[in-house]
């Protein structure tokens, strides 16, 4: 019926934001329209419930679905649309049944009293699993096992480590003051890191994840303390006169950038993480300079300054030197944080737009901005996941949320209640 097409020399091309088309007239008057999509968006993944469907199977399905939906790269398909005969399939798949619903990947699993077995299929590659793992249940919870498996799936597709099993720290108001808390990235197992009745704020995980630096008023001055991430007695690291706030660890963990006001106006300094001694002063002006954030390659420090009027984001060399303004949208931009993605210079920060506070990302090289939140309350203090695929932030009066770092999808709440100063710890060690 259809005749083969032959391309002629002239190709008419036009570009759109997401895709482009080329119409190629053929000699026999047939028409072939070339549609070239730019790869973008999330990978459709089917996560059918195990056939036995017991309590463990349901927990696995629940944790796996949550992990994949916040991974920043997958679109978890609605099980209501599944056409496959799951009982007949068992741990295998009938590829055509999954193709018909638009799934590109399918994960099957089976839990016994001793093991949990997972299999990942790429529908286009037939009924042979492309990744399979079996985990012993002894010595670890079902949730931990599912997190480990999901990290394997993310690594298979992206080559990057997943962030399932990592931790998020934040400051939350108590009855008298605010304390530092940490929890699993999905909001489970929250616990207090600080143990005093004073105001504690601005937690920052060390690169290894073993320590948390935070500012506390326990000696009536905002001093910087470093304590075990699991909770315990902290060590006073910096107690200069005035502010010792907003700690940011260098990538190698040997130094900390922070705001000190010992010489008058708040400026950015770098101190030794071992003894708190000042290494160098990064800014020196009469403006207020706060919220330092170290770039993943250690070469730059982003911070907030009102030297040109309202608060804006600036970037200065970590070795010292002149700072350059990088944010120009609106009149209020604060709390910068760097994406850990190597080879890219992307920051996320809080911006005020139309009287509301929202999260945006900015590629410092291409100047492309992506909006992460909009028309959903006041969102502040972003923190990238260890692989840069997701962003955690605080929504005023509601809690801690996670959203895809590419601006797609909807933010997911992982903590209900007051929360400020969100920081995301490193990837879990397997």
């Amino acid at each position, binding site marked *: 019926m259809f005749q083969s097409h032959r391309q002629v020399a002239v190709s008419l091309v036009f570009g759109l934001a997401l895709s482009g088309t080329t119409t190629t007239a053929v000699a026999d008057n047939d*028409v072939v329209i070339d549609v070239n999509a730019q790869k973008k968006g999330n990978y459709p993944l089917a996560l059918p419930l195990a056939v036995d469907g017991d309590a463990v199977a349901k927990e696995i399905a629940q944790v796996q679905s949550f992990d994949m939906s916040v991974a920043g790269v997958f679109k978890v398909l609605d099980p209501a649309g599944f056409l496959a005969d799951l009982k007949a399939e068992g741990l295998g798949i009938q590829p055509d049944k999954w193709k018909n619903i638009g799934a590109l990947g399918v994960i099957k699993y089976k839990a016994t009293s001793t093991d949990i077995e997972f299999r990942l299929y790429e529908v286009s590659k037939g009924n042979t699993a492309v990744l399979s793992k079996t985990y012993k249940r002894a010595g670890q919870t079902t949730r931990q096992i599912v997190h480990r498996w999901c990290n394997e799936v993310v690594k298979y597709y992206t080559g990057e480590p997943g962030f399932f099993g990592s931790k998020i720290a934040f400051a939350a108001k108590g009855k008298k003051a605010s304390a530092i808390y940490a929890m699993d990235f999905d909001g489970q197992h929250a616990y207090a890191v600080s143990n005093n009745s004073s105001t504690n704020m601005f937690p920052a995980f060390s690169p290894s994840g073993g320590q948390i630096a935070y500012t506390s008023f326990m000696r009536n001055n905002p001093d910087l303390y470093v304590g075990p991430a699991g909770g315990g007695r902290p060590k006073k690291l910096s107690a200069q006169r005035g502010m010792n706030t907003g700690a940011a660890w260098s990538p190698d963990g040997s130094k900390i950038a922070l705001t000190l006001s010992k010489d008058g106006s708040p400026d950015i300094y770098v101190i030794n993480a071992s003894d708190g001694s000042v290494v160098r002063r990064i800014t020196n002006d009469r403006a207020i300079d706060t919220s330092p954030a170290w770039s993943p390659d250690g070469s730059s420090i982003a911070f907030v300054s009102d030297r040109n009027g309202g608060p804006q984001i600036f970037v200065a060399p970590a070795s010292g030197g002149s700072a350059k303004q990088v944010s120009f949208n609106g009149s209020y931009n604060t709390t910068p944080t760097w994406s850990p993605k190597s080879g890219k210079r992307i920051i996320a920060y809080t911006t005020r737009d139309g009287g509301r506070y929202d999260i945006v990302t900015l590629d410092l090289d291409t100047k492309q901005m992506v909006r992460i939140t909009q028309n959903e309350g006041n969102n502040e203090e972003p923190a990238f996941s260890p692989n840069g695929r997701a962003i955690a932030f605080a929504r005023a009066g509601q809690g801690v949320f996670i959203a895809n770092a590419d601006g797609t999808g909807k933010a997911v709440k992982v903590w209900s209640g007051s929360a400020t100063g969100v920081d995301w710890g490193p990837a879990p060690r397997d």
Partner: protein
Amino acid sequence: MHTVAGFGALLLSAALVVPTVWLTKSRADTNPQLADMEVIEASLAYKNTKAPKQPQKERNAPVPEVKEQGVSRDETKKPDEKKDKKDEPKPDPNEDPLAKFRRPQDPDLESGKTDDQEGAADGSELGRGNISKGDPYFQRLWADLDWTVPELARSGGLQTIACLVFSADGKITRTEFKEKGDDDIATLADKAIRDLKDKRNAAPEEVPTHLLKRLTTRGICFNLTAK
């Protein structure tokens, strides 16, 4: 007799006293209690004549500048030298007097061949771009094709060409893959073409006369790729 008179006097006293007490109590109940009354700070009732004012800068009237007026009486002063009009550059008759008011990117300044590649992909027949000159029916068909490819989708490098044949009323009667690989692109193309068929058959757009023969016999094909 005395007993009767005494009893009458007592009754009269009671008749006078009881209503008086009852009325007084009733009125007191309707008055506001002290706790309910608004408390006004007494000091506010008085205007403080010595209220602090914002500091004011000391201001003196400026000394008026004395300007020379009229014709100079200075006999030694030389007259101003007149500028020689011959030294002034003559205006270029070809120069655009409005040039300095134009912005650097003013489209009016562009000249030469227009960019044929521009044009709205909205199916409009109007406009100067080549794509705008394309058939609006194909443009709308392209717009209905939801061809999106996820970042992680794997491509085997083979072409995926899907062809559609229409009935005169605009329904898609047949779909066929002329070429297809076995990668994610092929799986996504399958679904995209199926969704396009469902969409068009649910709300068909009549095939225009000039395309009737082509679309109902040979059809139209999409070469679906991703970069």
